[in-house]
């Protein structure tokens, strides 16, 4: 099932970002490797909904402004409290390696194809919901 979802997501991302499917793997970062910009994330959401015939609530897969609360960032790095917020808001993001160097500037790199696959797999099988 994961392979099937992966294939569909590669197709979706290829359409949204104009990147050949052969250039994508599970660890590809949407921003760093595939060149996604903020506008592209909206397009990706539209395409995922259509491809998988599901409704993706606003802010669930690609939440915005999650670290703008006081105390979540200090000197350019996400604090321990901030990491907890990220875990809660982005349960499908692999945060372990980010936590080793939680520089805010690195965060976008962790929006990966794998994260989207994990989200969609959960969404399709369980109807994922994030508070």
């Amino acid at each position, binding site marked *: 099932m994961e392979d099937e979802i992966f294939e569909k997501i590669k197709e979706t991302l290829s359409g949204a970002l104009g990147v050949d499917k052969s250039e994508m793997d599970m660890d590809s970062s949407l921003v760093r490797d595939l060149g996604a910009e903020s*506008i592209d994330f*909206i*397009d990706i*959401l*539209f395409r995922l*909904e*259509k491809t998988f015939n599901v409704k993706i609530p*606003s802010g669930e897969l690609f939440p915005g402004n999650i670290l703008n609360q006081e105390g979540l960032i200090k000197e350019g790095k996400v604090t321990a409290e901030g990491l907890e917020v990220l875990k809660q808001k982005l349960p499908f993001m692999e945060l372990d390696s980010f936590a080793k160097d939680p520089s805010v500037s690195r965060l976008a790199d962790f929006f990966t194809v794998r994260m989207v696959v994990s989200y969609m797999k959960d969404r399709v099988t369980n109807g994922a919901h994030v508070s």
Partner: protein
Amino acid sequence: MRWHLLQAIEEIDPAGSAVTRAQLPAANDGVQRELLLLEMMAQTGGLALGVLDDFQSDLVFAKVDSADFSVSPSDTAGLRIEARLSEVREEGAWLDASVKSGSGIILAQARFLLARVPGLNKNSSTPVSFHRAFMEGYQVRSKILKSEKGIS
């Protein structure tokens, strides 16, 4: 946005569409005619999307999925621009739009994405896209159709 590219707003349907009138400037200052037609469609689409949240959000012309243009029109006045929402999310919408000449010939068609963005003007709560001069000058609210319908 150069809202004055539009001459008048005909109607804004909260069910998901808008119609405007425009005229292609005789001298385009080097700007390609196709870009002006695309901008007219985007601005009309902005009205169709903007009405959904009472023109409180700023909108950005984000992506063009497709755009087709006919040969140069002989009648550049009285252009009718129609835009319709095809897919809507809180973050933005895909729209289908067209420009027809005064005699009804389709001059341009496009499908594009408008994105809602948090207030672009950090010094004011008034959106840049729907500033007061535009809202009043074009009598925007008076063009909104009374409708029981709504889009989901």
